[in-house]
């Protein structure tokens, strides 16, 4: 079952609604990159509220997705990490999550918009 990706202006929103198998995760990654590229999205927010388990593999997929999206010009924010999941990730190792995070969709959108604005600002600065 494909994960729906929504477009909100120049930002893409994707909400994972159920536990992901490894295959589904990689498929989602691929869908997301393609969508970001084809819509020239400036930002992407991924909501993982429904994920009850995030292990090192999924963490890596998340980080890789962030890097890939950056390459096609989009900033990424992951939101909805559950407290037990956050705790487990912190226990497994430091800095396992290499992408920006936010509490929920609302904060996630705010954050990604800030990041986009900062990018634009930096671009202007470097031109002067």
């Amino acid at each position: 079952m494909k994960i729906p990706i929504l477009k909100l202006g120049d930002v893409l929103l994707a909400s994972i609604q159920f536990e992901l198998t490894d295959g589904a995760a990689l498929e989602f990654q691929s869908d997301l990159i393609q969508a970001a590229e084809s819509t020239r999205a400036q930002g992407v927010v991924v909501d993982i509220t429904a994920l009850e388990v995030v292990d090192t593999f999924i963490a890596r997929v998340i980080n890789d997705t962030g890097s890939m999206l950056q390459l096609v010009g989009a900033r990424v924010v992951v939101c909805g990490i559950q407290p037990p999941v956050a705790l487990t990730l912190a226990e497994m190792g430091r800095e396992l999550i290499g992408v920006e995070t936010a509490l929920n969709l609302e904060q996630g959108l705010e954050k990604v918009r800030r990041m986009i604005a900062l990018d634009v600002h930096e671009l202007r600065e470097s031109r002067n």
Partner: protein
Amino acid sequence: MDVAVENDVVTARQAGRELARGLGFGAADQTRLATAISEVARNALKYAGKGVCRIYDTSDAGAIGVEVVVEDSGPGIPDVIRAMADGYTTGGSLGYGLPAAKRLVSDFQVESEPGHTQVTMRMRRPRL
């Protein structure tokens, strides 16, 4: 309880979580156990194609306990000591994910030789 690890790790980790919940483990512990199972079972999948996950209730009057044994008949882990070393937490190319899992449980043992690998994990909490 025996769970076949064949196409994904989701079934095994959900089974572990269910048992843990039933025994009275809190949300954080349930997530730890599920995540640890996920890491180890994925290993079996990746290097052996499939495996078996056995989950036992080891509770007694003084404590609640779970034991999980993940077994596969794959090529084995050539250097168990190195695999357990901390450089592997972020899952590099050899990413066994085992050191990460080890941090989540009370007890962690690995036996591996070509043709047979067995990882035993235990989680225990005293009853209040």
